[in-house]
């Protein structure tokens, strides 16, 4: 089998979630992985260690999470499609490198398998951490898969968004789906959309490295292409020169943030279920969208006009979509596996339009369909 044939394991599988994320990364063209052992993300590293040499990529077990995230950004600047994987506590350390990846506009993918503090039980407690956990003004792109299939699909999409917008993208996994085996369909390589970062058209000397067109995204050459660019986190002008100038700083930060905010419609994806006439709308993401959908189906069977808005992109926040359901619904249920984190966003966006009720569970276990259904009954 050739290296390219080994990249995309086309076919139907019964696969572990963590493995599916690896296969998604490889299908997307990932050729560099660095990670540090942490449960429940270990199967990602283990499979990467086996698979990377098969496809001609590089695998690094860093001495810590900091090494891993910075090796990923370094490899990316050298031209790699690079990824790391960690879990909650490991993400703490990586925040430093994520700040650099945002400010340095370095494409990379971070898989964060959320776990309870100190234990590997299921949770969604870090949905705010992945949005805000880095110093300095920044926007984040965070995708929330809800199944093994979505771990595969969203990891590919994460690479595509990272490459397109020159920014780190987080795949927000959870213990539930990471350690679950489910059906996975891997398509033919030709059927998989792959986005590659823009490279400069101009020659070295003519190319202005941090000057962007209307889309705000400057092309990115590889190290060794002869462009001799200075990549600094410090405020830098369009040539990359370090400048202590308020105008330069403001312009630079605005452009970097606008790459995400101005392309929000391209980035944000949600799925609606039974929304047409729903008066009670559940909003959920990740594995919580599964019992939420089950409860909605049951309620519909009992004649209750409910629907589900499933958020595939949690950041940037799907504000238009959430506001739209708030306009039509009387009550919005914010379904989450934590003490109510994303609920703050939902309450903010629904304010004045619909009543918001928090449906929370914070005991290391995903909601059951029955529990969510009971919450629907309680607001009738």
């Amino acid at each position, binding site marked *: 089998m050739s290296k390219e044939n080994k990249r995309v394991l086309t076919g139907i599988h019964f696969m572990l979630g963590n493995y599916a994320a690896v296969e998604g990364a490889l299908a997307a063209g990932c050729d560099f992985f660095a990670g540090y052992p942490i449960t429940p993300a270990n199967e990602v590293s283990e499979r990467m260690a*086996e698979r990377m*040499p098969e496809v001609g990529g590089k*695998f*690094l077990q*860093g001495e810590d999470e900091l090494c891993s995230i910075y090796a990923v950004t370094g490899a990316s*600047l050298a031209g790699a499609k690079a990824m790391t994987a960690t879990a909650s506590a490991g993400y703490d350390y990586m925040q430093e490198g994520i700040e650099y990846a945002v400010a340095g506009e370095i494409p990379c993918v971070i898989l964060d398998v959320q776990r309870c503090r100190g234990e590997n039980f299921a949770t969604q407690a870090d949905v705010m951490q992945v949005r805000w956990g880095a110093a300095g003004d920044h926007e984040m792109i965070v995708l929330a898969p809800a199944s093994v299939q979505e771990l595969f699909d969203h990891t590919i999409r994460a690479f595509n968004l990272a490459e397109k917008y020159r920014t780190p993208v987080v795949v927000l996994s959870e213990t539930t789906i990471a350690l679950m085996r489910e059906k996975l369909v891997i398509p033919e390589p030709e059927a998989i959309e792959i986005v590659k970062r823009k490279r400069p058209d101009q020659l070295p000397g003519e190319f202005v490295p941090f000057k962007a067109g209307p889309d705000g995204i400057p092309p990115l050459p590889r190290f060794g292409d002869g462009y001799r660019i200075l*990549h600094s986190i410090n405020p830098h002008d369009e040539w990359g020169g370090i400048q202590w100038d308020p105008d330069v700083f403001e312009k630079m930060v605005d452009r970097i943030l606008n790459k995400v905010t101005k392309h929000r419609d391209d980035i944000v994806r949600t799925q609606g279920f039974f929304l047409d006439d729903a008066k009670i709308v559940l909003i959920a993401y990740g594995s919580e969208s599964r019992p939420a959908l089950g409860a909605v189906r049951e309620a519909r069977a009992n004649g209750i006009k409910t629907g589900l808005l499933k958020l595939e992109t949690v950041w940037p926040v799907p504000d238009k979509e959430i506001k739209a359901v708030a306009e039509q619904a009387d009550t919005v249920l914010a379904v989450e596996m934590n003490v109510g984190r994303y609920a703050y966003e939902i309450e903010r966006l629904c304010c004045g339009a619909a009543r918001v009720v928090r449906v929370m569970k914070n005991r290391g276990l995903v909601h059951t369909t029955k529990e969510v259904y009971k919450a629907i009954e309680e607001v009738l």
Partner: protein
Amino acid sequence: MKTYPLQKYLRKGTLPHFYCAGCGAGQVLNYFVRAADELELDFDKLVGIGGVGCTARIPVFLDVEALHGIHGRTLPWATGIKLHTPELKVVIFAGDGDAASIGGNHFIHACRRNLDVTMIVVNNLTFGMTGGQVAPTTPKFMVSTTTPYGNYEQPFDLCKVAIAAGATFVSRWNTSRATQAIRAIKKALQHRGFSLVEMICQCPTQFGRSALNTGDPLKLLNWIDECSVTMEEASKLPERELAKKFVLGNFVEKQEPVFEGSSVYRNMEDM
């Protein structure tokens, strides 16, 4: 008007440099470009990495692919770059804070792996940019802005750490020994494997004023020189005396396999 003959290696518009008068970091920059010039290094294939601090600015002045701005993470960057594109030459400029303090763990592991990069540590015995705080390299009993009553911690000997951890080229000089320093940098750049050149460097603004009550660069250079001994001189000194000295020399030069990643196809029988 005469121009600096090696200016072609410096990034346009970056001079004058931002170092204090009498700082040794500019000297190290000078020594590096001299070594690079003599070796005719291809600057298109050269990556210069700096973390945070005074030394970290050295690659900012070099006309190379450069990374700058994160404290202590120079070697992780280098690891990613070198694994993905081994044909690039990677040179790290780290202060003692970057290398021995916040990046200490990365330093040990890069040595252990024999990562094929050159690391030039400019050791000014203090945290210069932040105001002269004590560093893991500050000599015992010296006053700094965070040890106003003297430093009672045992300092790191970075070269000894590197040797113990498995670095395959280890060398130490000071800024007043230009010839030896340039020669050591050249050797390091030609070496395949982890090469360390530690440069003991004067910081008149911070270390000098706190530790030696002088901001005079010459006095500081002389003090460093007086504290410096060659390996041969060191072998004759009693241990108590040696503790106060900077031993200069090329300590280790050997060939070992270089790091190619944590998971590599290999024929186990060849090992």
